[in-house]
């Protein structure tokens, strides 16, 4: 049995790297600094060790050859999921380039709300260490932050010391839209967060009024979607009065039509705040299941985020047309390669097209895929790199055990070679 400390997690998105684990053969137990997201993800046991073709156990070589055959026979394959480490995503890109596939990260439809805002007007954002040391006012828009990331408050807001705040427990926390699911946002001094609730679908209107108030526009109405304008006026004044406010949101949680306009509204509000003699930054939440990794790697290899098509022989980007779920539904794709090295619950979408699954050992299917290749998990079975939610820091994942499972990259590079 070995004890490994300072273990970084690719699961939680916030780059927690202070976990301790006990490894005994193939069994991993989190012994310190676990959470409801990380602990089960690390402790998930290995069940499948053999590849399967049509449900029959076969050698890895045979499964790779079959996968290559299916991709070769396809006119428009899809590389879906795209949930792995940097090398795994490099493998996705290599296969997609050769096979003329669509690359589509499983979280892209949520992330699209951010990309559309980014590519239309841009933003001013910050990263975790700046929040930890500078943020004196956190506005949480439309997301249950502790549900998203159980240790966010503990690690980045209620830290004992910070470089630039005398007392971190004086930070103000305000929720707009969703209310928090627990008390993680209550400060160590016992001050609970201010919560202004509204339905998700009302956020566009509420955010528009808040930005108008930041810009000193006159609002005649007394309430907006159940929230008193005077409350929003207070927030606007606080945003201007504090030194380093942060506005956070999770694109995936803004589940309503044209939510990109709400992302844009709050990003433009942050820009406005930086013109009225204070500093303010946005902070998009994400980073789960390798989504930032997928976008970063696809970004430097193709110059586009992870919803790109390679069938013309060069990369094309369209955040709507290359939505793999829509393509499968409309019969625009004729093969699917689903890559998911982190999460056994994240199974491929239901489809009748030939399906290859390169996924974490233990995935259970309603319908057995044509090819299933179980792979190791980055940060458990092999070393690697994963981006955390701020897209700036790539954490160095450790190998914790010798399971003998191949990495995503090894499998995909072999498929690429076989094509």
């Amino acid at each position, binding site marked *: 049995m070995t004890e490994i400390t300072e273990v970084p997690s690719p699961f939680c998105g916030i780059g927690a790297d202070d976990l301790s684990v006990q490894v005994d053969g193939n069994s991993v137990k989190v012994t310190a600094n676990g959470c409801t997201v990380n602990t089960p993800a690390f402790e998930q046991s290995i069940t499948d060790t053999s590849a399967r073709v049509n449900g029959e156990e076969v050698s890895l070589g045979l499964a790779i050859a079959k996968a290559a055959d299916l991709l070769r026979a396809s006119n428009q394959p899809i590389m879906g999921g795209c949930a792995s480490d940097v090398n795994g995503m490099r493998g996705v890109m290599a296969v997609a380039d050769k096979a003329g596939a669509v690359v589509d990260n499983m979280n892209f439809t949520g992330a699209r709300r951010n990309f559309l805002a980014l590519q239309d007007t*841009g933003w001013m954002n910050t990263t975790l260490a700046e929040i930890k040391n500078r943020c004196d006012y956190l506005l949480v828009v439309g997301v249950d932050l502790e549900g998203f990331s159980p240790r966010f408050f503990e690690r980045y807001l209620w830290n004992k010391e910070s470089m630039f705040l005398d007392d971190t427990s004086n930070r103000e926390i305000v929720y707009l839209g969703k209310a928090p699911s627990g008390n993680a946002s209550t400060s160590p001094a016992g001050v609970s967060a201010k919560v202004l609730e509204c339905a998700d679908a009302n956020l566009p209107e509420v955010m528009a009024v808040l930005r108008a108030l930041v810009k000193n526009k006159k609002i005649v109405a007394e309430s907006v979607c159940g929230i008193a304008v005077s409350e929003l006026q207070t927030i606007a004044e606080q945003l201007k009065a504090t030194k380093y406010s942060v506005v956070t949101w999770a694109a995936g949680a803004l589940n309503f039509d044209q939510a990109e306009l709400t992302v844009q509204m709050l990003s433009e509000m942050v820009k406005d705040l930086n013109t009225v003699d204070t500093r303010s930054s946005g902070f998009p939440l994400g980073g789960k299941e390798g989504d930032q990794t997928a976008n970063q790697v696809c970004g430097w290899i193709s110059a586009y985020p992870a919803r790109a098509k390679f069938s013309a022989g060069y990369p094309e980007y369209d955040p709507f047309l290359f939505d793999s779920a829509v393509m499968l539904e409309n019969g625009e794709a004729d093969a699917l390669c689903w890559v998911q090295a982190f999460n056994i619950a994240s199974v491929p979408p239901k489809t009748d097209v030939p399906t290859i699954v390169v996924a974490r050992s233990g995935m259970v299917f309603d319908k057995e895929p044509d090819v299933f290749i179980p792979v190791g998990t980055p940060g458990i079975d092999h070393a690697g790199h994963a981006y955390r939610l701020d897209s700036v820091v790539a954490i160095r994942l450790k190998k914790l055990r010798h399971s003998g499972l191949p990495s995503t990259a090894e499998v995909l590079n072999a498929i690429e070679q076989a094509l």
Partner: protein
Amino acid sequence: MLIKLTGGTVYDPASGIDGQVKTLFVLDGKFINQPPAEMPIDKEYDLKGKVVMAGAIDMHTHIGGGKGNIARMLIPEDHRKDPVYRSDITRSGCGHAMPSSFTAGYRYAEMGYTAGFEPAILPVNARQAHMEMADIPILDKGGYVMLGSDDYLLRMLTAKKDQKAINDYVAWTMNAAKAIGVKVVNPGGINAFKFNQRQLDLDEKNAHYNVTPREILQVLATAVKEIGVKHPLHVHGCNLGVPGNVETTIDTMQGIGGLPMHLTHIQFHSYGTEGDFKFSSGGAAIAEAINKNKNITADVGQILFGQTITASGDNMRQHANHGFANPNKWVCMDIECDAGCGVVPFKYRDQNFVNALQWAIGLEIFLLVDDPWCVFLTTDHPNGAPFTTYPHLIRLLMDKSFRNDMLATIHPEAQKMTTLASIDREYSLQEIAILTRAGAAKLIGLDDRGSLGEGAWADITVYTENTDREKMFEKPDYVFKDGELVVVDGKVVHTTWGTTHIVTPEWDNSVEKSLEKYFDRFMTMKLGNFKMSNDEITEDGRGSLTAHSLNSIS
């Protein structure tokens, strides 16, 4: 493998060879003077009448790191204009302003470049910089790690830590980030922006730390020298783009007290305030200061007209310039108590007075600096223009009549504000070889690159003489990387993976004690997880590290 390159006209300033006909031999990737008599020649290339130079080295080009990827994400419309098809030997991608990594490697190689250096590696983003560069084929690469706005250094300065402690921190950081140089960007200014300061002059204090840019430059330039790093402190100075910054720049040069210092994209720091538009050329004054101060080198950061995107660590100045964004979208980031970045698309226009004069100022500096070993050919890719404009820039330097023809087309008021028309200088082939090969290798501190002499790695570019220098330099006949033929007639025929150039200065391990405490108290990762290990570059079987020599430390 023994290769013979027969009868080319060789320009190799590193060996003092200026246009002599010479036969070269390459054995297993490196130059040798004479092969053993009995050894058979595996391949001979007849280079009679051809121009032979070492592979070119771009000493300042933004090819790896987070801000470049933000730039890529920001402008899909620019990529769509330049799709790059996959071939049997090359990967697909996109080109123009901020190309994809594979395309960047191919296009550099196709212009005869065999190495590029990322000038702004944030320590906390070093992994990304190296991972992106690991996906740039053919080229060797490396980078300069950014310090000067990191809270750790500023805390040290406020606490009056001694120079030795700073030297240890700088050396430790270079090792942790796998760097070959140290860069400072708007010294302390990126940090000051986080405290809502919107400008920071050379002697202005950071509101929190009470430290001035001048003090930061002094301790960092001293550290770089004292730990033996050959590449002088790489400085992106204060007040980028601000009319009147020529004074600051000259003050920066004189104030460093004779320490070696490289001023980067100096064109953006060479502006006066004269004339009807209160914007004038400081080109002559800057060139004169470079000529006088032998400790100073500079790369130009030439602008060329057209669409590009600017990506800089200087979020203070990028934020100040966001109103010029074209198209109108931009990104600024504060990053990890380490630094920041700003990404602003730009369209430089020849009929815009300021842009036109910027163009002329860059050329004035190139032409008025006497010693070609002190000036380097850059556009600060992609900030002044994409690197693919280099052949055009070389023609501007080598061909006075072409230059004057171009000058006659720019904004008329800008023509009046530049002395360019009166400058007769035309760069020679040997001088171009100094700017883009021998000088760059020497400045970076590469032991065995940028030369065609015995023992050097055989990075070679072969051109056909052409009085149209743009045509000549945009399409080499042959390019060899480590002795392997990679380009024929301006097209990649074979791909290889270059090495990553680093230095490994020594530090006192006790530096980790206070760093560990700092990381545990204030940072978001463990110190042990922050440092890059060598395997991160070499474990994929493609990458390698090459450590270069240091100056002996007295």
